[in-house]
Every structure is written in structure tokens, then in C-alpha cells.
């Protein structure tokens, strides 16, 4: 008798082999890239920031599990694919460090349930869930979302200790003199007092802003660490340069033009790039696969659009920072961009007609 070899796996078309990259490995790398900025933020703002961070992440996993159960999907396999964790992580990075615990819970709930699962789960959502939650929180709870903690690093004598921090997060008891305005917020209010920039920015230090030693959202403050993480992601080929470069260059060029024309009323390009959520958004939020265009040219358009909107909102809008709004607006434009900007098929022109034969 002859023994024949038999295929023991499904007869599926090629490719029969593949890369080792998986959804979880991509999510993991993004988390690794934002880890330094996060750790630095947690250190700068102490125990309250750590509590808020944990509450946000844990509640996101809880909401994700609930949704998966309701939808009748496998919980174990999907819950730990890293996507819910990453969404919550990015949301937490944009929250004020002394925000009460329920801000994190409501934010996570919003991001996971309304931002992602109602659309059908991973890959189906139109808007960036973290930014959707951030904007919803900002509009619903403006006070909590604009109370910015002073830099109060862990284990510093002047910083709140663990018990005090517990009360800040879980009882909303913020001691006096621990909060203030962010640079962008300060500029906006001072403009309304008719002061001019050179006067307003007397105490501004671009160095401490660059390293992240300043008031701001939990993980947004360190331009240096965020840029480092972003560059590493590009080197790992998780993201391409198109969106970050287009976004940052647009803001830089626009603000340069206005600043050169009137430096008393228009903030310098360096301050623009060095403050608020600029680098976090450019490298980690706007580059979200699901909600950004999928061709390089489309991504350039998307990046330019984001940069333009950020600049417009910051300069003329009511809010000091417009990154979240800008990303959401461009998310809404993504299907349109993908419809009009698509690769040319081999042997066809841009309109899909076969090329002419030319010898």
C-alpha cells in the first residue's frame, strides 16, 4: 500500500506564508512608542495622574468586554488585541492630570461604546474614538477638562502625597494653588485683555515646554519624547511620514507667515509646534489607520487639512487648542478623500480606461 501525503489544512489560495506582523503587534508597538512620554507625564503629575490613567484603561476594557458580550463575539480573543487599551491610553494622555475619576470612566465609555462598538467594532468607526471622547468630555464638562495641574512630580516635597492625590482623583478635592493655565490657554485669555505677545510670553520657556516640564494634558507635554516615539514608529514602518510631516509643516508654514506679518498677535511657529497636543496628534492620533485615508497622497491631504484646522481654531476659534476638533473634522472627510484619491491601476489611466498603445 502506498501512503499519500495529505493536506491537513484548508485548501486556501496563496499567499501561503506571511509576515509575523499582527494587529496586536502593531498596537503593542504604538504603545511602546508612547510609553516614554506617558511615563514622563505620570512622573510629572504624580499619583493623581497614575490613578486617572489606571481608571481610564480599566474601564475601557470593562466596556469593551460588555460590548463584545452583547454582540456575541469572542471576548478573550478580541479584548486583548490591544485596540481598546490603546484607545483608552491615548484618551488618558489628553486628559488633565487632576481630572476626577469619573471623567476617565465616562470618557472610556464614550470612546469604546459610541466611538467604536456601535459602528461594528474594530476597523469600522468613522471617527477617532479617543478624540471623539475627548471632545464630548470637553463640551460636557468644561471646568474639569480645563483645570490644569501644576507640574508636581512624584516624591517631591511640594507635590501632593498619595493620600492627597487619592482625594484629588476620587473626591475632587483639589488643593488651592495647585492649578493654572496652559500656555495656549494663557495666551488666549491675555489676548482678551488686549495684551501683546512679547508681554504675555515674558515667563515662557521653550526649553521646559520641549522637555515637557509644563502644565498640560497628562501625556501631551513632552514634545521631545513624543517626537522620539513617532520617529521610532516610522522607522518600524508602522506609520509613514505623510500625515505627521504634512500636518506639522502646514502649521509651521502658516504660523510663520502670520507671525512674520504681526508678531504681536500671532504666536511663533515654534511655540505652536511646541505646545498643546501637536506632536501627540501628528504622530499618534491623526495617523490612526482606521480613520485616516489609505493612500499616500490622501494622507498628505489629510495632514494638511488637520494642520490648517488646528491653526485656524487655535488662532481664531473660541478654544485655545483645536487638535481634537481638527482631527474629527478631517476624519469625516476621509471617505471623501479615499473616494477621489486612489492609486492608478496598472495598464489604466486615472479614470480606469486602458492606456493607449504606444510603440
Amino acid at each position, binding site marked *: 500500500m502506498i501512503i499519500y501525503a*495529505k493536506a491537513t489544512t484548508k485548501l486556501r*489560495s496563496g499567499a*501561503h*506564508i506571511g509576515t509575523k506582523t499582527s494587529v496586536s503587534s502593531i498596537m503593542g508597538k504604538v504603545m511602546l512608542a508612547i510609553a516614554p512620554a506617558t511615563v514622563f507625564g505620570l512622573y510629572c503629575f504624580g499619583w493623581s495622574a497614575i490613578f486617572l490613567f489606571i481608571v481610564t484603561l480599566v474601564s475601557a476594557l470593562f466596556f469593551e468586554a460588555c460590548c463584545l458580550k452583547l454582540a456575541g463575539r469572542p471576548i478573550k480573543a478580541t479584548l486583548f488585541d490591544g485596540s481598546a487599551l490603546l484607545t483608552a491610553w491615548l484618551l488618558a494622555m489628553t486628559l488633565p492630570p487632576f481630572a476626577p475619576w469619573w471623567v476617565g470612566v465616562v470618557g472610556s465609555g464614550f470612546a469604546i461604546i459610541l466611538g467604536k462598538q456601535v459602528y461594528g467594532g474594530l476597523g469600522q468607526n468613522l471617527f477617532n474614538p479617543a478624540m471623539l471622547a475627548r471632545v464630548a468630555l470637553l463640551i460636557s464638562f468644561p471646568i474639569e477638562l480645563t483645570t490644569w495641574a501644576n507640574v508636581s512630580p512624584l516624591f517631591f516635597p511640594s507635590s501632593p502625597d498619595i493620600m492627597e492625590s487619592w482625594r484629588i482623583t476620587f473626591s475632587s478635592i483639589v488643593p488651592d494653588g495647585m492649578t493654572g493655565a496652559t500656555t495656549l490657554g494663557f495666551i488666549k485669555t491675555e489676548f482678551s485683555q488686549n495684551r501683546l505677545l512679547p508681554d504675555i510670553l515674558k515667563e515662557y520657556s521653550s526649553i521646559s515646554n520641549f522637555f515637557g516640564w509644563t502644565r498640560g494634558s497628562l501625556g501631551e507635554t513632552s514634545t521631545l519624547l513624543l517626537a522620539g516615539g513617532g520617529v521610532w514608529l516610522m522607522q518600524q514602518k508602522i506609520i509613514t511620514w505623510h500625515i505627521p510631516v504634512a500636518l506639522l509643516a502646514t502649521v509651521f508654514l502658516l504660523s510663520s507667515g502670520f507671525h512674520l506679518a504681526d508678531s504681536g498677535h500671532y504666536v511663533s511657529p515654534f511655540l505652536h509646534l511646541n505646545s498643546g497636543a501637536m506632536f501627540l496628534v501628528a504622530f499618534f492620533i491623526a495617523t490612526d489607520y482606521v480613520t485616516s485615508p*489609505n493612500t499616500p497622497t490622501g494622507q498628505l491631504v489629510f495632514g494638511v487639512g488637520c494642520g490648517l484646522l488646528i491653526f485656524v481654531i487655535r488662532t481664531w476659534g473660541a478654544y485655545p487648542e483645536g487638535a481634537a476638533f481638527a482631527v474629527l473634522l478631517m476624519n469625516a472627510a476621509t471617505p471623501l478623500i479615499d473616494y477621489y484619491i486612489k492609486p492608478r491601476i496598472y495598464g489604466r489611466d486615472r479614470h480606469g480606461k486602458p492606456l493607449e498603445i504606444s510603440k
Partner: protein
Amino acid sequence: MLRTLFAKPRLRGGVHAEERKSATESSPVITSFPLPKKLYIPLQQHVGKPAEPMIKVGDTVLKGQLLAYSQGMISAPVHAPSSGLIIDVNDYPAPHPSALPIRTIVLETDGKDEWINIVQVDDPFALAPEEISFRVGAAGIVGLGGATFPTAVKLNMGRENQVQTLIINGAECEPYLTCDDRLMQERAAAIIDGVRIMLHGMGTASAVVAVEDNKSHAYSAMYTAALPYPQIEVIQIPTRYPMGWDRQLIRYVTGKEIPVGARSSELGVTIHNVGTAYAVHKAIRYGQPLVNRIVTVSGGAVALPMNVEVPLGTIINELFSFCQVNMDKTARIIMGGPMMGDPLPHSALPVVKGTSGVLALTKDELRDKQEQPCIRCASCITVCPAGLRPLDMANNIRINQLDTAVDLGLKDCISCGCCSYICPSNIPLVQYFKYATGEVMARQQAQHKSEQTKKLIETRNARIDKIARLQAEEERERLAAKAERERRLAAEAAEAEQEVS
């Protein structure tokens, strides 16, 4: 400089898959494969119409004897891979994922491997170009890169279109496969001779042999062999799958992009595989038809991976025993490479003209994980050499919007597998596209059929109506004639009566 910056890219998409060629690339082709007792020779080993058998059960044949002749414009004949007795002409499983039956000649070898009287040609360049393609066609040569298009047809098209450039494809971009690599290393002079004969056959001035830059030994062998012939240039091309896709290679070498629906010869370029050039050399110089080929046997379940020259019709299982394949470890059998090759249900299937390799892959080598949701990472768009958007096509196919998938370019998909390879969510994209292509075709056929039936019914009804109308008319005429006759008779009778009275 601006022009080079804005020129059309010569290479688009593609992946650099792990090559896994080292197991077989450095040892010589084994030519001592024991002659199988039985050979199963399918009559369809090529694109086009199957060959028509001209022998019957009980005939004794010699090696190289014509067993089945080519039928129609696009077809190829089949020859006896060894000498022996024809014991069956019947349906046997085809080397195809379906293993559906296909007409096959079964040859019981007599062990003598005795050649039929073959005619050697000392100076092929004295033959008329038409004679070259005629002989190539008669030798049953088809594209040996895997496309299996009859070579003679391509040579004729090249001659009729006065092609200026012949490209010889030595890319061998599929992982694992090294049969072309070894052929180039060991038989470079014969390949170059085949190229010269092809040039003569098409009346073409120059040829470019393109070898991927991961095959430096093959490149230098070919380069040296081509030195005496200024009309043949040997170049190195980047190692990037699917470099061996004819249209990609043509664009890289000549900068020409073949329009959809056109043939490369219309743009003055023809492309042939190195294995085909070698077969042409054998057929023209030595009069030997295509009866054997080099096959790469490799994969994690193969104890002795190798390149081995086997007669066509050899059962893969015998190859596997020769190379000591561990049957228990074999998770998937693939004919061809791991990117585009076809999975086979079992190994009791024959080697055919297009079999460049047979792989026995273990579970670890395969990527056979659970499909996850698409995260729109767009890597499939980045790697697609045809400029398609696989993720959008797959999404539409999933919800049965096949027409939208066709609009998105489903028919321009070349099934190269780059998208499936790169997808982090393990989505079997090519499987979707093949399913959709088949389904679209089935629907078109069904529609065509119902239209034809409708037409038949309509013509039948029209015919019946016409007959009824004619009959009615006839009847009316008959009745009218009858009435007329009766009237006349009556009138005559009345007249007669009058006369009487």
C-alpha cells in the same frame, strides 16, 4: 532631474518575503531520479485546448513519441516522457486544488528509456524563422515559468509584431523555488543558445536576460555565457516579489507599461522564461520534445530538499519518497511557490509542464491563523503591484457587492498574493478575489444561458406563430377557393337551369 523625479515609477508595490531558498540553491540538480513504473500524462498541461490522443491502449511507444496532438490555435501536443506501454487513456485527478478528473494517458515504462529517432540540427540559424516556431510548437513547449502559454504562439506573435526586445525572465521571485536559479548556474550556455534561437525565430535584434540580484552565481554564469553575443545583455534586477510578473518586469526593463487588454508584443516586447529558452535549445538543436523538467522539492517537511529533473507525469508522491518527505509533518502541499502556488489536496497527482516546484510545508511555515477584522492599515494598497485597493474589494465581496468589486478592478488582480502576505489581520484576500472572480463568471454564464434560453423560446414561439399564420392563411385561401368553386358551380347550375327552362 525633475523628469526622473516625476517619471512613472518602474517598480510598484511588492514585498520582500523571506526567501527560504538556501535549502536548495547551492546543490546541483539531481538527474538520477529513478524512472517511475507508471507515468500519468494529462492531456491538458497548458493554456488553451487539451491535446487529442492519437494512440490507443495497448500501443508501445518510444520516448519522445507524439502521444496527443495539439488542437486549434492555442494548444500544445504531448509526448511520451519515456518508452513503454500505453495502459490507459481515461480520467484521472488533475494537479489542481480541486483534483477534478482530467483526461490522462497512463504509460507503463519498460525501463529502457529508449528515444524515438530524433533529428538533430547542426545550424538552427539556417532554418527559416517560421520553421523555428513550428518546431517549438511541435515539441510541445509552453511557458515554463508557470503560465504554460504555448511558446510557438508567442514566437509567432513576436514575429508578426516585429518585436524589438526579447526579455528573458530569470527573476524567480517566489520563495523556496530555485529550479531556474540552478538551471542558469548549470546550463547557462544552453539557455543562451536557446535565446539566440528564439531571437532568430522572431527576427528580433536584441535580448535582455533579467536575473534577480539575490542570484549572483546564476547572474555571473549567464553573464559569462552571453559574453560572445553582443545582442544579449544580462542584467541584475532588484529582488522584490513579484518581479517575475511579466508586466512588472517589462516595465522595469523597458519603462513600457502594457495597457489593459493589450499584449506586450503589440508594444514591441516579448517575454519568455529561462526554462523555456532551455527547452527551445533542446528542441531545436537535439530534436527533443518537452518530456521532463527540473522541479524544486522543498519545505519544512522535506528531509532532502533538492532540485530534481523528472519525467513529466511522475506522481508527486514518488518525488516525496525520493526526497524523504515526512508525511505526518506535512500540513499543506503546494504546487508552485508559496505566494501564488496552488494547494493540492494530496500527493497522488502528476508533475506537469508548469510544475516549477512542489512544496511540503509544515504548520509553522504556513500562516493559517484566525482571520481578524481589517484595521484599514492600507499595507495591502502599498504592496499591490497592480495598483488596486484590496481592502475595499474584499469589503465589497464580503457583503456580496460583486459588481462594485469589479468596478474597483477585480479583473485587474493578478493573484500575486502580496496583499494576503502582508495583511496583519490574516485576511485571505486572494481567496476572496478568486471566489468573486469565479462567482462573477458563473453569474455571467447563468445570465448568458437564460438569455439564450429566452431567445430560443422567442424564436420557437415566433416559428409556431408563423406556421399557425401560414396554416390559417392556407385554410382561408382553401375556403375562399372552395366558396368560389361552389359559387361558380351554382352559377353554372343556375345557367343550365335557365337554358333548360
